[in-house]
């Protein structure tokens, strides 16, 4: 039973770390603000979520697990809201998402 807990939490932690790294690489390499928000979303929801789930498995049925679940639930609901507000602000300021076939230099707001 103890071995199972270790293996499961190890896998969850490893998965969460890998997802966080993928999200970070995505934040750097994607060409457009709106595409980078996708990568930021990966880090916030799944990356942090799997790491916290890994910790939850380790701590079993205690108050610690409840706190971890609260952190996860809070992050899960608020970071998409923050990203939505950011996308709204970016759109309102005139930045438009880069549609396929646009000029490919990085992040020049296309003039409509």
């Amino acid at each position, binding site marked *: 039973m103890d071995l199972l807990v*270790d293996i499961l*939490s*190890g896998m969850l*932690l*490893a998965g*969460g*770390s*890998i997802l*966080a*790294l993928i*999200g*970070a*690489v995505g*934040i*750097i390499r994607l060409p457009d*603000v709106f595409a*980078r*928000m996708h990568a*930021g979303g990966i*880090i*916030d929801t799944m*990356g*942090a979520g799997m*790491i*916290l789930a*890994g*910790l939850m498995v*380790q*701590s079993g049925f205690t*108050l*610690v697990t409840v*706190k*971890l679940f*609260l*952190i996860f639930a*809070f*992050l899960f609901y*608020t*970071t998409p*809201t*923050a*990203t939505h*507000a*950011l996308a709204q*602000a*970016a759109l*309102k*300021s*005139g*930045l*438009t998402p880069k549609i396929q076939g646009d000029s490919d230099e*990085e*992040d020049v*707001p296309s003039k409509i």
Partner: protein
Amino acid sequence: MMLAATTAAVLVTMALALVRALMGPTVYDRIVSVNAFGTLTVVLIAVHGFLTGRPEFLDIALAYALITFIGVIAVTKYVTMTPGMRPGRGDDKGDL
């Protein structure tokens, strides 16, 4: 050991997010990377609490998660309201 590896991965992710904050042409890139950085700080605090075997850190992580969210919304609203900071009007990047 697994927790140490997770801490290392989270620290590397934070460094990569900071690279976008420095390079980001528009102010919104910076906000995206700071938002990711804040969430990763929450995870780092939680993992550190587990590493040192002190469950009180989770309260700090929860408080930090609340603050990060409010901070991002405040900065976004500030950038939206301030006329000089919005890119897309001309060729300026509207940098902070």
